[in-house]
């Protein structure tokens, strides 16, 4: 077995807990949805594109996107719903650029489907805009090498996994997820770092994601 590399800098696990803040803003049709999407804070776009990941963690991955769900299930615009659901969130490094893509997708659809403007949600089925308020705090878990790292990944909350994979990258605008970054810069293992950053976290449930990361790292430790 190769010598275990001690990290240059230890990895401190953080966790991210959130509160949902109501804005009082709502939409009953596609035009209203588009108009509000353009003006709400980024924290709102973030909430509606990531909420599913945490709330339905035991379902097979759903579209991580409230807009897609509402457009399909409530307005019956399945085609647009599919387009919104298949936006490749991992390709966007900022919430701003993700918002732009959502706006462009809806605008394009409305141009070609004028009648879609005439569809209204029934009473009680409006889209309610919510924003995510994140609270980031350090946990007591610190890893000094990959064995400690994988042991901790097995037991931290999924909120912690979520923070280091999703929130740090997109919302805090770091270039990659925190795990990949640490493996590359502190352990010096570019190959392992790339394997983790190649994962598309949006197509896994959070528990799945945890298992996949554990498998990748344990495989590396065995090699």
């Amino acid at each position, binding site marked *: 077995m190769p010598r275990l590399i001690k990290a240059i800098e230890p990895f401190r696990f953080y966790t991210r807990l959130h509160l949902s803040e109501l804005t009082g803003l709502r939409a009953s049709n596609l035009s209203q949805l588009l108009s509000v999407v353009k003006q709400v804070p980024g924290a709102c776009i973030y909430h509606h594109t990531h909420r599913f990941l945490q709330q339905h963690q035991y379902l097979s991955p759903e579209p991580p996107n409230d807009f897609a769900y509402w457009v399909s299930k409530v307005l019956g615009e399945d085609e647009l719903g599919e387009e919104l659901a298949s936006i490749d969130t991992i390709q966007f490094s900022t919430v701003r650029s993700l918002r732009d893509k959502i706006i462009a997708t809806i605008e394009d659809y409305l141009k070609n489907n004028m009648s879609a403007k005439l569809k209204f949600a029934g009473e009680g089925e409006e889209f309610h805009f919510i924003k995510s308020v994140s609270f980031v*705090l350090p946990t007591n878990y610190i890893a000094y090498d990959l064995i400690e790292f994988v042991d901790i990944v097995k037991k931290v909350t999924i909120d912690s996994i979520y923070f280091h994979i999703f929130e740090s990258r997109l919302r805090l605008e770091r270039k990659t997820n925190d795990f990949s970054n640490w493996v590359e810069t502190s352990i010096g293992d570019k190959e392992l770092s790339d394997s983790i950053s190649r994962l598309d976290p949006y197509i896994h449930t959070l528990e799945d994601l945890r298992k996949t990361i554990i498998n990748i790292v344990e495989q590396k430790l065995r090699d």
Partner: protein
Amino acid sequence: MANIEEYTPIVGQSIIDDLRLLAEKLKGKVIQHINSTAVGGGVAEILSCMVPLLRELGVDTKWDVIKGGEHFFEVTKKFHNALHGRPEEITQHDFDIFLETSQKNIEALDIYGDIVFVHDPQPIALIKKKTGNKWIWRCHIDVSNPNQRVWKFLENFIINYDSAVFSAPSFSQRLPIRQFLISPSIDPLSDKNKELPQKTIDSVLRKYNIKKDKPIITQISRFDRLKDPIGVIEAYKQVKKYFDCQLILAGGGAADDPEGAQVLKEVMARSEQDKDMHILLLPQDDIVVNALQMASDVIVQKSLKEGFGLTVAEALWKSKPVVASNVGGIPLQIKHKYSGLLCHSIDGASFAIKQFLANPEYAKKLGQNGMEHIRNNFLITRHIREYILLFLSLYHKEDIVYL
């Protein structure tokens, strides 16, 4: 009363560790909850469980109850119904009664919390005592379509709070203060939700003279028109044509709900001596409620309006198939055809009940999915976490808070 460590096998050690980390951040702050009843109803139930757990986590938490006579609670019940959108005649005299009792409470109640957490409209006027401390108004009611006269009256108080909390997105209003979405929760270790031995369930059934010889459909709710007990009876009668089943309508009263006796009378009249209908006015006995839910084959919550509908979470936690109205906080708990069946009418309810009775495997699967959904989203540990975050949010205005 369970201590916090006893939740570890249910939610995992790391969730409990997070609560301890968060609780430390509130050191030195006193939280004062205020509501209108110490027993009966969802608010008192949650506070009974939450206050000791918060204390155990090191959050200095107290709970006070306002006083109000018969007239005051009649008025607040009218407010409650009107906020739910039910037609109610509300006179200036009603507002005067409300303000008069509120003034007495303002004079009598000691406000000592760094954070004062006021639940529902009854104690809302206490905000007049606000000084340099933080105040939160927690609305447990479905105010998606409120009577505007009552809402405007209350709004004069609400705008002076620091934050408001609602149970479902559709309840939010345009307000000049921050509003948060926090769902209520159930306590998996309480008498109402813990696992019961079969002999306890059997003895409760014997006590109420219920035989387990045919499927049991149950709605547990206060006898309140908004819970639509008559609608449940109608749905049961439709099902009964095809399935030989029995119905349990069971519930207690709440100290702040003077209307219950009249509704119970109407329900009794509609039961028309059907020996398979069991109308039970229960004393405050959570083991009985638990046993009735456990003994049921299908659980119904056919509310016309619902603040949240914790009975749905209770039933799902017991892996029961649930048929419930698509109102208030219920769609947050039930994803149609995944963790239960949603309905919009008596016909819809009876159709869904029949689907469950005819397909026990389907019913079982949805019940199991429901239990996992409750474990992830509607247990007391999640609720405690969000309340602590809410308290912390009073001192942080930004969208990303580093603690």
